[in-house]
């Protein structure tokens, strides 16, 4: 019987431009790696939004927190690469429910990550090389953009197929 399972790896970033190397040990019942997900925790969102102007009609660029690369020990070599994004700062784009000149008060139905966020799904890959360990490196980008040390944590979720 084939089942889908997931394991979690957490990284702690606290320096500008930090590149962190890590390993993810895969369980013995891992038959095939089927996807990756990423998430950022404890990121200073107040400071984050201060770096961007509020404009209903301006679609702002979303800067990544960092870049993640993962390599298997088989022929696939580097099998996954992605930019890790903190959140979508354009959730309020074109949102006329907020009075245009009043953005500091806390309206009950103001757009937020937990009210307007998309459904999250893993990025699908397929690697079936019987690899016991994945090797990865994560490089901080947002610290370099803001020219300062930005502390936050990154969670990496590895989805795999388990055959029993």
């Amino acid at each position: 019987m084939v089942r889908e399972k997931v394991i979690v790896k957490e990284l702690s970033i606290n320096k500008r431009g930090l590149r962190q190397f890590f390993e993810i040990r895969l369980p013995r019942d891992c038959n095939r790696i089927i996807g990756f997900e990423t998430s950022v925790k404890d990121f200073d969102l107040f400071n984050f939004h201060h770096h961007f102007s509020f404009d209903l009609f301006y679609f702002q660029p979303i800067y990544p927190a960092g870049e993640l690369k993962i390599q298997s020990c088989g022929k696939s070599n580097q099998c996954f690469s992605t930019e890790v994004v903190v959140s979508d700062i354009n959730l309020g784009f074109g949102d006329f429910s907020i009075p245009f000149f009043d953005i500091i008060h806390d309206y009950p139905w103001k757009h937020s990550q937990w009210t307007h966020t998309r459904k999250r799904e893993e990025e699908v890959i397929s690697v079936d090389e019987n690899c016991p360990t994945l090797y990865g490196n994560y490089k901080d980008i947002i610290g370099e953009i803001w020219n300062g040390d930005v502390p936050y944590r990154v969670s990496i979720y590895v989805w795999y197929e388990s055959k029993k």
Partner: protein
Amino acid sequence: MTKIIKKRFDLQITAANQTKSDSFELDKTVLSIKGMLITSDRDDLLYYRGTQKIEINKEEIFPENYESKLLMSGINVAPRSRYYDLGGIAPGNGIIKVDYKDSNSLLTGFTPYRVSFYFDCETTE
């Protein structure tokens, strides 16, 4: 003939930085669990502070430290698509065990809140 129903189970989180565990039993008529969704009366606390481990029939579905935000869907998602697809898991003994952990966050303080787990189930009549 089979039916699709939604079962809801609640956890009350009354203390900060603690793990709250509970087991829920599905009806005997449940044939498979097709999906799940997590919501709260304080979605912001759930989004920033919540992680959970979920077991169905003693099989781990989501491990410890799996963030709750990954199982939440906003109003921009069509109602039919909001449930996280579990692919139709057999209920086995019908017991769902949840270990929900509330952790400190720089972005929000703590106040007691409710976490609700919805399961999309296929049942016999």
